[in-house]
C-alpha cells in the first residue's frame, strides 16, 4: 500500500489491512524469517538495559521546550509589547507576516464565505510552513492542549495501572464524522461553531488575554480523558488534527521505521497517541524494510525515544537522516 493511501486511511479511521506476503519485499521476508524463534525475552531485556531511554527522552524535552516557547512567545510579545508574535494561535502576525491557523481559517471561510487578502496570505504561509514541518507536528510541538492532555494521559495510565480507571475506546471513524459535521455546521449556521469548543483556541487566548470560564470546558475534557477515555479529544474529535494530518501527507518530515533490528515488542505502540500508525511495527506489519509512518503521526518522537532498538527515526525526505 502506498504511503498516501495508507495515510488517508489512517486519518479517516479506516483499517489498514496487513500486507499479504506477496506485497512484502523479499529482503523484508528474509528478515522476518531470520527472526523466527530468535527474539527471546532475555534478548529484549538486554536491549532494554542498554537503551536506558525511559519516558522523558531527548525528543520529549526538546518538544516540550518548543511547545512552551511558542506559546510563551505570544504571551511575552503582548505583555512587553515587543510586537514579535501578535495575536493568538488562531491567527497572528509574526514580525509583521500574517499567519492563520488552517482549521480556524477554514471555519471562517465556510461561515463567512468571504476571504480577504490578509487571511489568504496567512493561510498559505502557514500551509507551507506545516508542509515543511510535517503537518500534525503542529499537534505535538505547538498545540497547548496537547501538553495538558499529555499530562492527563500520564495520570490516566497511572490510574489504569492500578485498575482505578479503564480506557474506553471509540470508533476512530467518528473523527471523520465530526470533521464533516463541523464543516456543515459552519456552512449552514453561518457561525464558526467549532471555535466555541476548541480547547486549542480557548487555551491560547486564556494564556495571552487572561483566563475565563471557558477553561472549565477544557477541564471537563481533561477529566473525561483521565477517567474515561485516553486522549479522547485528539484521537476522536479534533478537526484541527485532521486538517494538519492531511497537510502532513505531502510533508517530507516523517518518522521512519527500519524492520531489521526491531523486536516487535510494541513499546512504541504503548506510548503513541495514534498507535494505529505504528501497526507496521507488528511482526508482519510492514511491506518494506524501510517504511515511513503514516501522516496521522504527530511527529512527537515518543516512539523514537522509547524504541529500544532504535528502529524508529526522524527523517527529512531528500536530506540525509536526522539524528
Amino acid at each position, binding site marked *: 500500500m502506498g504511503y498516501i493511501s495508507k495515510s488517508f486511511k489512517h486519518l479517516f479511521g479506516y483499517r489498514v489491512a496487513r500486507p499479504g506476503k506477496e506485497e512484502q519485499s523479499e529482503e523484508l521476508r528474509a528478515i522476518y524469517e531470520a527472526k523466527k524463534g530468535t527474539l527471546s525475552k532475555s534478548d529484549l531485556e538486554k536491549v532494554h538495559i542498554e537503551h536506558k531511554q525511559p519516558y522523558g527522552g531527548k525528543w520529549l524535552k526538546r518538544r516540550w521546550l518548543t511547545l512552551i516557547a511558542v506559546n510563551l512567545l505570544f504571551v511575552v510579545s503582548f505583555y512587553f509589547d515587543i510586537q514579535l508574535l501578535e495575536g493568538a494561535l488562531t*491567527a497572528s502576525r509574526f514580525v509583521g507576516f500574517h499567519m*492563520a491557523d488552517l482549521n480556524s481559517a477554514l471555519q471562517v471561510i465556510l461561515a463567512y464565505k468571504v476571504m480577504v487578502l490578509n487571511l489568504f496570505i496567512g493561510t498559505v504561509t502557514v500551509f507551507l510552513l506545516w508542509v515543511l514541518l510535517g503537518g500534525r507536528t503542529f499537534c505535538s510541538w505547538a498545540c497547548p492542549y496537547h501538553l495538558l492532555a499529555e499530562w492527563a494521559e500520564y495520570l490516566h495510565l497511572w490510574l489504569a495501572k492500578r485498575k482505578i480507571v479503564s480506557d474506553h475506546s471509540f470508533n476512530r471513524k*467518528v473523527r471523520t464524522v*465530526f470533521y464533516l459535521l463541523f464543516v456543515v455546521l459552519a456552512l449552514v449556521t*453561518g*457561525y464558526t461553531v467549532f471555535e466555541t469548543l476548541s480547547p486549542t483556541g480557548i487555551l491560547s487566548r486564556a494564556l495571552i488575554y487572561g483566563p475565563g470560564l471557558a477553561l472549565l470546558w477544557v477541564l471537563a475534557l481533561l477529566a473525561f480523558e483521565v477517567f474515561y477515555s485516553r486522549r479522547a479529544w485528539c484521537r476522536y474529535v479534533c478537526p484541527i488534527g485532521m486538517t494538519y494530518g492531511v497537510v502532513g501527507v505531502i510533508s517530507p518530515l516523517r518518522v521512519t521505521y527500519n524492520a531489521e533490528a526491531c523486536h516487535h515488542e510494541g513499546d512504541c505502540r504503548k506510548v503513541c497517541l495514534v498507535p494505529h500508525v505504528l501497526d507496521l511495527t507488528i511482526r508482519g506489519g510492514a511491506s518494506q524494510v524501510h517504511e515511513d509512518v503514516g501522516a496521522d503521526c504527530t511527529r512527537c518522537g515518543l516512539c523514537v525515544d522509547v524504541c529500544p532498538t532504535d528502529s524508529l527515526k526522524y527523517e527529512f525526505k531528500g536530506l540525509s537522516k536526522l539524528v
Partner: protein
Amino acid sequence: MSDQNSDQKPKAKKTPPKPGEKTRREFLRSGVLAAGVLGASLLGYYPVLQGSALRLRPPGAIKTPLDEQEFFASCIKCGQCVQVCPVYAIKLADITDGFGIGVPYIDAREQACDFSCDGLQCVLACPTGALTHDLNFPADTRMGLAELTRPDTCLAMQGQGFKGQARGADFKGVLRFSEVDRWNPIPLADHPFDLEICDLCVRLCPIEIRIAECAAEAENDEPQNTARVAQKIGNECPPRSAIKLVPMPSDDGVKRMQPVILDGCVGCGVCEMVCPPQIPSLTMNIKKTVDHPGGA
C-alpha cells in the same frame, strides 16, 4: 486499528466480551460521543438567540445593528485588535457568549474607545476583515448611538456643576488629553475638572474634540495649501457634530442644560464612560446608529 489487532488471543479471563459485542458497544459509545459533542456545540446558540451576546463592538465591526451573525462568522478570534489598542478598550468575550466566544467587545463604562490611536489601529490589525477596512476615519464609524437613558441622573439637567475626578479616584479608565500628552493616554482620575455646569460628555467626546481641532487648524492654515485642504476633505474634516448641550426652559432661575445627541455621534461610548453619576445618564444603544436611528 490498534485495538483490533488480529493477533489478539482470546484469553480465558473473566467473561471476555465477544469481538462482535465489543464492536457494537464501541459503536454505541461513539454515537453517544457524537451526540454529546454536537449538543455541547449547539449550546452556543443559546446566548446568541437570547441576545445576551449582543455587545458594543470595536469600530468597523461588520454588522447591521440588529444582526451580528456576520461579525461572529468572520472574526477568527485572535485578539490582534486587542493588542494594538492604546487604551485597552477591547476585550474578548468568554464562553458565556456562545458562538461569540473570543469575539472582541467594548465595555464602554469601564473603558471606551476614544480613538486615541487616530488611525483606527484595530481595524488595520484585523486579518479577516471582521473589522471592515472600508473605514478610514473615526467619524465614519458606526458602533451604536448614544442615548439619554437616565435624564434624572444628569448633572447638567439639574443645573449642577462638577468638581473633581470624573469617575472618582479609583477608576482605572484612561483617555487621551492632547494638551497633556498627545501620544500617551492618561488615567481619567489624573485629570480632575472644575466646571460651572457639567459638560463632560460634550467636552470629552472625541468627535467634538476633532471638530474643535480642525477649527483651530483651519484658522492658522495658509489658504494656498491645497494638499492640506484635500487631506482635510478626505478626513471629513470637520466631522458633523455628535453631541451638544442645549439650554432648558427654567422658571426658578437655575441654568439647566440638556445633552442632545446629534447625527455625528458614532457610539464610541466615551460619554458613557466619563458621565459622573453612579448610573450614567448616557448609554450606548447598540441596536441603533445615526444611519439607522430606528434600529434596523
